[in-house]
């Protein structure tokens, strides 16, 4: 069963002469529990594809099926709920509130979901334990190293038990040693908990560790290797 599927996905920016096609009709089908790397140079359209799959952006044409359900006509309110409950995000630049505690950062998606404070804390501590940072829960996020920050971000991404984790260059800001550790956590989650992993990267080594590599050049999928 495919967890997410894109059919003839097109996305263009601007109008008339300045019109730019970032995606020129992409078909992808990602199975549940797969780890997929979307590989391509900058400007190839890989980020655009990820944004579309993560339902952060609307395609110009084509459709996206989440659990075999068409998402084209879902209302904004339900779309927000869907993103909150089914997806986790990890970004290259972490995007943490550095002045806040680690725990509060991890609890953010649960706070948005409207989960009660007590339950929130329990779930966040469990997620922090998963990335082996439960002892840093009350530290300020700013006091952590880069690798630790990214692990907190992974905890934040998995705290709501998502179906899919989207990771945009998760190791891009880390040195190779800490990068490996972050990768390990991501792939462990993928293997042990069956969370589908979609990683956008231009790092071939990271891509090679995934079950499948989708290569994008100029808005077209040129290679899809399993």
């Amino acid at each position, binding site marked *: 069963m495919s967890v997410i599927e894109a059919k003839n996905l097109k996305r263009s920016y601007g109008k008339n002469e300045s019109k730019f096609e970032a995606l020129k009709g992409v078909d992808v089908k990602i199975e549940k529990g797969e780890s997929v790397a979307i590989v391509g140079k900058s400007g190839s359209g890989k980020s655009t594809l990820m944004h579309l799959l993560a339902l*952060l952006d609307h395609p110009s044409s084509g459709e996206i099926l989440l659990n075999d359900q068409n998402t084209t006509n879902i209302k904004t*309110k339900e779309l927000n*709920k869907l993103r909150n*409950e089914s997806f986790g995000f990890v970004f290259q630049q972490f*995007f943490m509130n550095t002045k806040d505690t680690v725990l509060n950062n991890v609890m*953010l*998606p649960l*706070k*948005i979901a*409207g989960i009660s404070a007590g339950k929130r804390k329990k779930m966040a501590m469990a997620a922090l334990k998963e990335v082996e940072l439960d002892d840093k829960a009350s530290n300020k996020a700013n006091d952590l190293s880069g690798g630790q920050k990214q692990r907190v971000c992974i905890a934040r991404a998995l705290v709501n038990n998502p179906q899919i984790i989207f990771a945009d260059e998760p190791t891009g800001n880390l040195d190779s040693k800490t990068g490996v550790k972050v990768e390990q956590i991501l792939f462990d989650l993928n293997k042990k908990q069956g969370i589908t992993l979609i990683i956008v990267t231009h790092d071939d080594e990271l891509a090679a560790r995934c079950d499948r590599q989708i290569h994008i050049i100029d808005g077209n999928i040129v290679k899809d290797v399993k």
Partner: protein
Amino acid sequence: MKFGDILKSACTNLMRNKGRTILTIVAIFIGSFTIALTNGVNIGVNDYIDKQVSGVGGDDMMLISPKATVSMGNTDEPQKYDPEKKTSTMSQNATLNDKDVETIKEMDGMKDADSVKSYSINYISGASDEKYVFSSMPILGSLEVDLEAGKSVNQESKDFEINLAPEFVKSLGYKSAEDAVGKTVKLSTTASATGEETIVEAKIVGVRNQSLMQGGNSLLNQALIDELSAIGEQGLPESMLGQYGMVVATMDKATYSSDKEIADLKERLGEAGYAGQTVDDEIGMIRNIINAITGVLTMFGAIALLAASFGIVNTLFMSVQERTREIGLMKAMGLSSGKVFSIFSIEAALIGFLGSVLGILGAAGVGNLVNGIASDSFLSSLTGFTLIQFSWSSSGAIILIIMAIAFLAGTLPARRAAKLDPIESLRYE
């Protein structure tokens, strides 16, 4: 996101840049302080005036005198003489008689009318035997007398009773207001026809509080006034008896309560050749001046608030700018635009709330200080006058209005934050 969490994140956001938040709150504080203080003065002064009004006479009372006309009348032509109508000009003062009292009493909207008997008192003397010029007046309408000691004069009593003005206590030779109560004073009056002087003895039953409106005026009961008036008229020819300068009428409050109805009643009195004046008319002037002054000051406060609300707009715009990525992230995680809007507009309302509460507390503090100084110095002669007063309702209203203004100011930046596109904001450097 639950409302409690929205409120909490608005609070944490405010705490994140304390300096900026405090400066914005100070701006609101200045406006709210000014408005709260002037509002306090307004309440204080109006409250005192109300007390004074009820000390002068009931609010259903109307003083009626012959209407004064200029010799040219109120039109361009000289006015025709009408023996039925009272005419009073600069040089000639008409008086009212029992017939006028009846006419007024019969008028629609009047419950009762009574003549104010004229009398004259040459001097008063008490325990010290010194003679003092004495001014006094009868009790009019349903009067509540503001007393420092003793009790109000009894209108039904046959005894001669006085509520003494406080200025006379020491001069007449009494140690205190309490000491004066129960003592007998001598009043000298003269018959206007014969010039013969008579001494009338009256008992002090109470001592009045200081009064702004009627400083130095004592109150006499009806029996004493009847006696003084009778002595004054001794030996006068029949035709000169029963002449009054003024008639006190009681309005029928059941049907005549609104300002418009009272104005209508005055108009009909005017047509009949009388001029009517309510207690409120006499004091309305002072009230209008106070209201105008406080009104202008409140306007200054409002201008300060207007400036402060631009401060809120600016502060929150900066805050939105700083938090663009955070907002983008939260929106990516499924936070709705509506909730983003609420976070920022509640932040603005919180600034308004803190500023207005601090402003009112500041005004209350300064008000207490000023009241303390005032009652020891320039207002010491006006007992019962609290210059600055605060009421829960008006303070609450000020807080709510300022919060509403702050909220409105916050909607602009909040709207910008709500409209942010998550992808764009996450790319934002």
